[in-house]
């Protein structure tokens, strides 16, 4: 998958998972994930959907250092390559 394809797919998953009212047009790769309504509990929904949507397995503790949408995209690039 290309960078843009991953970003688009991730965007869609985040949009369907979060419960916050987010202005998605203003979201960039620099946007922080916690600002999109994800915290230590609600991120679990997102993890399930990412694992399912991208058909990949990962240890969720690998996400500890990911802070932004761009960090997630970079992580997924390495896993879907």
């Amino acid at each position: 998958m290309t960078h843009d394809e991953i970003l688009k797919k991730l965007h869609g998953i985040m949009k369907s998972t979060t419960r916050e009212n987010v202005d998605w047009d203003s979201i960039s790769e620099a946007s922080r994930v916690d600002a999109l309504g994800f915290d230590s509990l609600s991120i679990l929904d997102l993890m399930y959907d990412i694992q399912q949507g991208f058909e990949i397995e990962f240890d969720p503790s690998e996400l500890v250092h990911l802070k932004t949408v761009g960090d997630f995209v970079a992580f997924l690039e390495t896993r879907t390559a």
Partner: protein
Amino acid sequence: MSTSTKPAQSPWIKARYLVEYAGLKAALGLLNTLPTTTSLALARGVGNLGYVFCGMRRRVSIENLRRTGVAGDAARARQLARASFSHMTQLVVETIWARYAPGFVEKHVTLAIPAATRDLLNDRKQGLLLATGHIGNWEVAGLAAARRKSVVGLMRPMSNPYVDAMVQRLLPPGGFRLVPKHSPDIGRFAEYLREGSVLALMIDQFAGERGMSVPFFGQPAQTHTAVALLHLVTREPLVFGWCRRTGPLQFELRASEPIVIARTGHKQEDVRAVLTRLNSELERAIGEAPEQYMWGHRRWKPVKASVGSGEE
């Protein structure tokens, strides 16, 4: 470590918190001077008073006991509700002793755990999800598990920051930590599991409209989904455990066989499968000791809408 450091804004609220804190501290000081049997008798007395004077909680308890069918008639419901009040106040006293008294777990807790679960507890590198409810003495359960490996309990920070800080200070040194449920640190829970800790979660609190509606005693109850999602996402083993009081200051730590729910790719169904299984384990535990359950919680509150698997 305190889970809540935000000071009270209003001077009146701050004063109320300080009064509550001082009262609790005085009560703890008193407990330390009394013999065990006296303290437990006092606790039972306070529980009985609570049953008489806390009308709303009494009504909820009786209603829940009737609703679930655990009490067949009104007289039995009243009897169990009163015993439940008494159980809760004893739990406070027992917990203080359990935290302070050296060797409490070794002297007062026996294990009734299947071999497979015991192996998981004894393996210090293996993460473990422990689901439990407000049944028996859950504080002693956590302390008993912490004798085997590090335990991290998720808690909602108390509104009174002074009491919250005191609770944290009272934790015994060693392997038992309480951490707030919500944190911006997104990978935190997975990291606890990876370092080989037990991650303990309560499964029987009303989860509101963001929980999932799952049968509990045959009636839909809004249920938190975190434990199910953690199991499904991390694939770490999951057990249901609880600590039954078998006599004065005597407990038995019980646990299920490891529960494994395979992922189907349908999140809602997978989460429901885990939660349904856990609710049945809790129902079984309650059936064994209905007087040791916290019946005063409004578990079956209606919600406007049930929306998926999200957490509170």
